[in-house]
């Protein structure tokens, strides 16, 4: 057995199969390796723990989505708003193929206190924030978004909250073809961009500044 090369994907799919059938993670790496006719060494060649397998699957999902949208011809014509929308639609399309696993893994994360990211989602968050930084940076450059100095850094955090919200919404979504998730994405992202684009509050702030500087004279 040991002579046969065990592949990363084989371990991943055996693991997914196990947790979805049993509803919990295997009792030990030893038991898992034995049941799949490999050694613990084979397992540790690729992963340090069961959690590491899940992290890998999550990371692969978001990488696939970003790779796919950048390949689309329309990508270069898209505004920042459309790029973020495109990401969300594609990402949840990718997740569809692994919906049961995602549901399992999110449940395994336990309750999510605000401001804390579970270990399983860490690489997803890093990739997502890096992606948003790029897209938003171009949006600021093109003037689509309003430069509000210190606030700029917060934009991507708001998008991350939207990400978590949509993920949770999608997991609970019972509508046909997850149409309600589509609506949640369309409406949510549009609201965020309406706010971070130039909006009436900017005018109000400017007017306030003007009054402060001139009205008392």
């Amino acid at each position, binding site marked *: 057995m040991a002579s046969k090369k065990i592949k990363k994907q084989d371990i991943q799919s055996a693991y997914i199969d196990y947790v979805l059938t049993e509803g919990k993670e295997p009792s030990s790496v030893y038991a898992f390796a034995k049941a799949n006719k490999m050694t613990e060494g084979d397992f540790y060649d690729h992963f340090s723990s069961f959690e590491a397998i899940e992290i890998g699957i999550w990371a692969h999902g978001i990488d696939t989505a970003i790779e796919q949208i950048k390949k*689309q*011809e*329309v990508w270069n*014509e*898209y505004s920042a*708003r*459309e*790029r973020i*929308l*495109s990401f*969300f*639609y*594609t990402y949840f*399309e990718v997740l569809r193929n692994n919906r049961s696993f995602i549901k399992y893994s999110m449940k395994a994360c336990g309750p999510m206190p605000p401001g804390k990211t579970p270990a399983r989602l860490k690489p997803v968050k890093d990739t997502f924030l890096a992606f948003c930084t790029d897209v938003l940076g171009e949006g600021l450059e093109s003037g689509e978004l309003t430069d509000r100095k210190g606030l700029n850094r917060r934009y991507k955090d708001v998008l991350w909250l939207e990400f978590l919200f949509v993920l949770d919404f999608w997991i*609970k979504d019972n*509508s*046909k*073809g997850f*149409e*309600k998730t*589509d*609506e949640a*994405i*369309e409406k949510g992202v*549009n609201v965020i961009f309406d706010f971070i684009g130039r909006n009436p509050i900017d005018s109000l702030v400017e007017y306030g500044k003007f009054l402060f500087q001139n009205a008392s004279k």
Partner: protein
Amino acid sequence: MKEQESIAASKVKRSMRFVKTGAQVGGNFIKYYSKKIVDPSTSRDELDKDNAEDIYNALSSLKGSALKVAQMLSMDKSILPKAYADQFSLSLNSAPPLSGPLIVRTFNRSFGKQISEIFDSFDMKASHAASIGQVHKAKIGDKELAVKIQYPGVADSISSDLKLVKPFALRLLGMSEAELAIYLKEVEAKLIEETDYELELRQGQEISTACAHLDHIEFPAYYPEYSNDKVLVMDWIEGMALKDWLKTDPSQAERNKIGQALWDFYNYQQHELKLVHADPHPGNFLVTKDGQLGVLDFGCVKQIPEDFYHAFFGLVNPQIKNDKDKAMALFRELQMILPNDTPAQVEFFFNLYTDMIDLFARPYRESQFDFGDPGFIQALYAYGEKASKTPELKQARGVKHFIYVNRTNFGLYNILHDIGAEVKTDRYSPSMLETA
């Protein structure tokens, strides 16, 4: 346990949204009434306009089926005062567009292909919005196509949207909830049909094939290979919207030609096919460059049941005037006069409905009819106005098929009046006239 809780929570959230809209709407009505109390001189027209705007705002933020009902109400100008109708007609071009990425995703999911793999060119900007979807222009080779894409979630939200519209409908029509129920069911069933683009494609093909021999009328070809329940691809018909065409001040001969095409189209369907395009909204018609009538949108098609057809068009027969017993029997069959009515009620409704049928049948009773004559349409409005102020009519009367058949015919009369056409009405007339 945890899962159960969260599901309940999201349900609450969902109904909160509707409660909120409902509250706004309720607030609107309070606003109108208080306005009226404070300033009794506020003209009815102005008040109606305010109402319509607010209702329209509430509805257009919902999009989908609620918007459709608004359009349907606006169709029946005889029920709605003019200001409502004008505002509601706006709802045609109002819903916010779908984002490009969602369109791209829809195609990927439906056909497993990129848009660019299907079409040689595709305009990401919607050329216009329909009530439950939007239309894009695309090209394959030299062929120009119209691609209709449905808003996500529309089919799902119909029932809840209708519940939302119910208070408006109750107020506008002044009916009780139980009585309105049979009509709303009919409307709901039709609206759900409209969200199935595969059905629309079949209906479009069926009717356009059956009507292909009619003069001066043009139908788009449909492309089943690029269509499914959410995407519908057909020929792009180049032309002017009916309203814009009328602004070019066409000659009387041209008006008559388009009007005749419209009349023939509808009456051939009603009397020969017993299957009718039940959405005679001006937005569903074009005048092409060659001066033909282009017909779009076969989402709403009403099958006219044989027994209803015979009873209803039996009333159109001029002989009926001299045969009160027969007319009475038909009114009873159509449930316009009910078994429990007192003799006084029977007499009252008999006269009321006879007037209505007289008006309705007027175009059929001559071989040529001038819809441009303001007298006719004013008589229709006046009747509608009178009916809306008749307390005896604030209860459900008439079988459910009236909704779409009336909408179709009064809609048709309205458009023909707007066009100002004089048409030959004896070409496809009710078969009842011949057997009389």
